[in-house]
Each structure stands twice: as C-alpha cells, then as structure tokens.
C-alpha cells in the first residue's frame, strides 16, 4: 500500500466530513428559520391594527368585550380562561401521568408493563378530536346531570378533557426518562438501606428530571394548543370565569371559531390573539429553560 491513495481517500473523507457537518447544521437551522418565519408572519399580521390603524394594545389585552362586528376587541376573558384551563389540567394530569409512568417503569410486574406501555403509547396517537367527541358526548352531560348545572360546557369540562389528553404524552415521555436512569443509581440507594419507594422518589425521579420536564413542556404545549377538542366542550362564552362551572373561551378557541368567518381587521385581531398565545408560550419556555438549567447544575 502506497501512501498517496490513502491520503487521497482521507482527503475525500475530510471533505465529506465537512460537508456533512454543514448539512447537519443546516438541518438544525431549519427549526430556527421556521420559527422566524412563523413569528414574522403572525406578528406582522397581528400588529398591523395597532401600528397602522391606531388600535390600543392595552385595550386589546385588558378589554373585557369582544364584539368584532362592533369593532370591540378585548381578549382579557380569553387570557384568563386559557391560564385557568392550562394550569388546571396540569394540576390534574401531571401527577397522575407521572405516577403512572413511575408505576410502569419501576413497580409494575413485567408482563403488565409489557402490555400497558405500548397501549399508552398507542393512546398518545389518538386524535384530539376524538377526545372532544367523547367530552361532548359523555363528560359534558355527566357534569350537567351530576352537578345540576344548566349547561355542562364549562371550564371544568375543558380541564378534564385536557388532563385526559395529556396523560399519554406525560406517561410515555416520563417513562422513557425514568427507564434511562442507570441501574447503578438504584442499587447505590438500595444498598444504603433505602426502601424501593424511597429510592424511586429520592433518587430515580430526581435523576430523570430533565426528561420529566420535557414531558411537562410537551403536554403543556398540547394543552395550551388544543383547539378542536376544546371548542366542543368549552361553551366558548365571552365571560371572565369566576367558577369552574362557567363556560369559557380560551385563546385558541377564539381563533379557530372565528378564523373562517373573519376578514380585515377582525382577521388581524385573531392573529393578534395568536401573538398573545405565542408570548405566553415563549415566556413559559424561557422560564422552563431557566428552571431546567438550574436543576442541571
């Protein structure tokens, strides 16, 4: 073997190496490009009424009235509704989902886990519309009949449907994270005489924290972004909810309900509603990124 062909082939390899590295970088940048395009288009459309047409942004955010046909655009009730619905569903969904994940990964007898884990994974793929269909056909009448309400379409119905919908996401993602915790951590803790449950809560869950955080972010995205299922059970009333039984209109629902029928300023205001939604999510992501960065140290 002479030197030159090897060096030549190495040169080709280094070229491919560089090319592939840059190609991978480009792929990674597509997320950034997409985000920039989405933000650009939504903000451009959504800010037009405030920049060009002299609408007040403060009135938009804190206004209580949303009557597009009378030129009144206030999204405060929807902001409140979105926050309540998301927080409520997380309060119910996260513990149940997380405990289920722990159960499947740590405690469940193997044959049970072997059947259940894929079933839950399957459920992650169930279209949200079907949860809405179920919510409308079962949960709404159930609430109405058992709580003696004039209507079952309510904040609590939204919370329940969202909590159910996020279960599969939380369970599958957290389960993967928990299973990825090295056995040696558990053995180390067990060897110190800590009980199995103690080990799970003191060692395994903290070790799987970043994955669990990912699960929560994903399901929060799902909850806040859910539209079609929510439309069916929220009632979509334009009031600031004062109780769990009030019917509500979250931000996403507002957009979906009226987008088809909107034109001109009305349509731009729906994009503005999108901006509000967007800002919430960006802030949430930022906060969560900070939390997980702190947790990682």
């Amino acid at each position, binding site marked *: 073997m002479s030197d030159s062909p090897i060096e030549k082939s190495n040169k080709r390899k280094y070229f491919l190496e560089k090319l592939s590295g*840059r*190609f991978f*970088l*480009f792929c990674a*940048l597509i997320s950034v490009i997409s985000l920039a395009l989405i933000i650009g288009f939504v903000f451009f459309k959504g800010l037009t009424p405030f920049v060009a047409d002299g609408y007040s942004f403060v009135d938009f955010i804190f206004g209580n*009235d*949303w*009557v*597009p*046909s*009378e030129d*009144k655009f206030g999204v405060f009730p929807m902001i409140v509704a979105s926050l309540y619905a998301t927080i409520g569903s997380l309060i119910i969904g996260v513990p149940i989902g997380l405990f289920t994940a722990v159960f499947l990964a740590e405690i469940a007898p193997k044959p049970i886990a072997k059947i259940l884990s894929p079933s839950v994974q399957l459920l992650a793929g169930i279209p949200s519309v079907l949860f809405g269909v179920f919510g*409308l056909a079962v949960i*709404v*009448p159930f609430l*109405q009949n058992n709580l003696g309400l*004039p*209507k*079952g*379409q309510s904040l609590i119905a939204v919370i329940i449907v969202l909590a159910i919908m996020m279960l599969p996401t939380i369970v599958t993602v957290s389960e993967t994270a928990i299973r990825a915790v090295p056995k040696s951590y558990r053995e180390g803790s067990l060897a110190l005489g800590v009980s199995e449950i103690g080990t799970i809560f003191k060692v395994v869950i903290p070790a799987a924290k970043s994955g669990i955080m990912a699960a929560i972010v994903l399901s929060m995205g799902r909850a806040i972004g859910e539209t079609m299922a929510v*439309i*069916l059970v929220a*009632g*979509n*009333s*334009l*009031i600031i909810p004062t109780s769990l039984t*009030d*019917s509500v*209109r979250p931000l996403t629902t507002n957009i*979906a*309900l*009226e*987008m*088809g*029928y*909107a*034109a001109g300023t*009305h349509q731009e205001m729906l994009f503005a509603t999108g901006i509000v939604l967007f800002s919430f999510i960006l802030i949430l992501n930022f906060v969560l990124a900070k939390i997980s960065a702190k947790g990682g140290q």
Partner: protein
Amino acid sequence: MNKIKKFSIYLIALAITVLLSACSGGANNSNSSSNDGYTLSISGSTSVGPLAEKLAEQYEQKEEINIEINQIGSSAGITNSINGVSEIGMSSRDLKEEEVASGLTETIIAYDGIVVVTHPSNKVDDLTIDEVKQIFTGKVTNWQELGGDDLEIVVVSREDGSGSRDAFQEIVGYSSGELIKNSIIASGNGNIKNTVATNKHAVGFISFEYVDDSVQPIKINGVEATPENVLNQTYGLSRPFLFVYKDENLSEEGQGFIDFILSSDGQQIVAEAGIIPLK
C-alpha cells in the same frame, strides 16, 4: 465562520430553487388535470356548503368537470372570490357594502329558513320575535317567564362573523354586543343542534336543512317553519343563499354550474336537500 455563512446561503438558494420548481410542477399538475376536466373552485359558507356538495355531485355526473368545495365560512369565501383564490364564493348572508363595492356579482341559488330550536321536552313551542330577542339579549333568563318549566335558559349562538348569525340578528333585531355574554358559542349548525338536543335548558337557531326529531322547532308568531311559509313570507326568519363571483373571473364552466343550479333539475335537488327552492 465566513465559509459557513457562504455555504448556508448556497444551501438556502438551493432550497428555494427546489421549492420554485415544485411550484411550477404544481402549475403543470393543475394544467394536466384540466385534460380530465375543468376544476372549479368554490369556497365559503358552511351552511351553503352541504347543498353545494350535493349539487356538485349531480353535476359532475353530467359534465366533465371537477368541483372543489371548501367550507370555510361566508366571509372567507367572499374574500376568496374577491382575491380570485376561488372562482365562486358561497355566502349565507347579504354582502356588506365594502364587499359589494369590490365588484362582486351575487346570484341567489336558494332560500333558507332559520329555525329557533329547543330541547324536545321544552313546553314552550311558540315565541314572538320580540321574545326571541329578549332571550338572546338576556332580558329573559328563565323558561318559567315564557310559560315553561323552572329552568334557566341557556342561549346557544353561532360565532361572530357567521353568515347565519348575521342574518339571524338582523331579522330579530339585536346586535352582537347585546347578545347575552354567557351564551354558548358553537361553530356549525350541527354543533348547535347537538348542544340543544342534549340540554333541556338550551335554545338555539339552525338552518332548515338541519332540523330533525332531536330538536323541537319553535313557531314564530304562531307560524310554523315550513318552506311554504317562507315562500309566502308569513315565516319571518329567512335568508337567501348566495353564490358570489367577479364577472371577469367566472369561467364558462362556472357559469354552466350556476345555470344548472337555477334550472328545474337543480332546484329539484335543492328541494330534496330540505332547502327552499327559488320557486
């Protein structure tokens, strides 16, 4: 770093080229599909949509034509027909001034009655227009006040911007701002019907074609909601179904479809669909 920049610019250029060629591919594609028959694009009202689909199904069997119908709401359909995105827009409400000003032509293809409906168990089955207004503006909040059971009234309305809602409010005589705040807002006739059918408290309004046994239609001023009563103008809650288009955008094929709808065959289909034909 500079090299990376150059390289990314190169790649982006490449991506755009690919996209553009895909675009032109798309144009070719729609051209080639015209060999099989002309594609007529229609979009708009969800109330008119089901009727238009039925008409299109029949018409496609007669003619070499593909009709694409997108149910995206009256306003969006009208906007599409103004922009030329769709050849024809469907509307279940009258055109607004600025829409007329943009040069749209409208053709009434049928009439629709709007029916106020309640749960079948509701004892109230006759209301005046004014009572309807008081219900929807929240002045009357219990069925007892109207001679029914002691149940809170739950108002179900369509969303702001819906052609059906605009038409309903205009006839009954209240504005969107007056609508009772805690009313349920449902998108689509089916959703309203379903909501009312499963709730003893509820009252809503839907298109004629959606009425069935699951809900109770309410007489208005003692007049039943029937096609005859709409045509002889004794039933007050009715509106036209419109096709709107710009004359310069309307193709021969599009005109052909409209002619078919207005023909006796077409109007027969309208009647079979439970909607009120023109004559």
